[in-house]
């Protein structure tokens, strides 16, 4: 793929926490797909050999001094990309659920239709892995709740497979939710009047390890995210300016 035509400088961002069993294969598959794009793995204070595995597979590794949580790790990557002048970033999970072959689709949409963020949705077309019933219900519920806030239907609001441009990078490098960030991130973009959309992608079951959200935690997750969304709607706007196109 000629990513240069779509994005002047692209960085692949992979947040990872104790994913030594899967991160290397994810890095390799991304590098096979996009050999020229730097792959940055943010090691979120892993206690296993995630960093070494990623490095051996050819990724740059930025190690955080202690565990910050998914949002903190992703924001580190966004801040890094913004400070180093990258034009866009594609974020994918380190558990192998996201298919690097879908990255060009995300980037195409990002550049051709002037969106600031494009996320990959597993629910727009029912192909590939479809997650557990509880998670699908959660996704559907959030999609319903977010509709009046975002003004449009987002089929897969919990998707962590996303491409962002420099304007979104600027916003996220300053304000990004710490826990379960995907849904709140949409509200953050909406508040800043940035444009986002979804494209259909194929997802796989995770290669190894367990999800950070168990059945019991799902309840905490839902309450936490709802509060986060509410807080974002009511948030006091600190003064900083986004460069207009």
């Amino acid at each position: 793929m000629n990513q240069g035509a779509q994005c002047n400088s692209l960085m692949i961002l992979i947040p990872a926490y104790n994913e030594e069993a899967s991160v290397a294969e994810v890095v390799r598959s991304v590098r096979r797909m996009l050999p020229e794009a730097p792959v940055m793995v943010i090691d979120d204070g892993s206690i296993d050999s995630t960093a070494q595995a990623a490095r051996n597979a050819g990724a740059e590794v930025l190690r955080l001094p202690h565990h910050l949580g998914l949002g903190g790790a992703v924001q580190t990557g966004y801040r890094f990309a913004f400070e180093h002048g990258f034009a866009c970033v594609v974020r994918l999970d380190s558990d192998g659920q996201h298919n690097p072959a879908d990255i060009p689709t995300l980037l195409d949409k990002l550049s051709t239709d002037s969106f600031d963020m494009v996320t990959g949705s597993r629910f727009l077309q029912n192909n590939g892995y479809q997650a557990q019933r509880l998670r699908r219900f959660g996704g559907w519920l959030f999609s319903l709740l977010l509709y009046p806030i975002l003004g449009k239907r987002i089929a897969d609001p919990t998707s962590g497979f996303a491409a962002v441009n420099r304007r979104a990078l600027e916003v996220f490098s300053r304000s990004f939710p710490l826990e379960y960030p995907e849904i709140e991130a949409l509200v953050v973009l909406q508040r800043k009047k940035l444009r986002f959309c979804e494209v259909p992608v194929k997802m796989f079951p995770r290669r190894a390890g367990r999800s950070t959200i168990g059945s019991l935690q799902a309840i905490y997750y839902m309450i936490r995210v709802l509060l986060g969304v509410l807080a974002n709607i009511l948030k006091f706007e600190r003064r900083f300016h986004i460069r207009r196109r």
Partner: protein
Amino acid sequence: MERARIAAAVFSSLLIAEIIRSVRREHIRVEYSMAWLGAAILLLALCLSDSALAAVGRLIGVSDAPTILMVLAGILFLFTFLRYSILVSSLKDHNIQLAQKVGMLEWEIERLNKELTNRKDATRPPAAGAGGAGA
């Protein structure tokens, strides 16, 4: 004086003593002791002053002195807790920013070290005998 008021006065005095002790030993920074100290002094003052306690009782619509003290202690506790939740949140934000900065700086140091090693390797003269010229 009722037993409940005496108990509250003793508790407030002990709290004040403990806060002062902690500040002296630098277990609590002065700025973080202020809210607790203020709450404890206020509680003690109300325990000792009948008129102040009655005035507060009229304000919140309670006539029983121990109940007034309980309600007031609860309110003060909640406000102090809220203040510290705000402080902890702010500290967490700073902590995250610092951790991110440390991670980025470490990456930068590693990159510079690699670059330096590569440069040294490139400028190092070839070892004696290398090149196979033969004696």
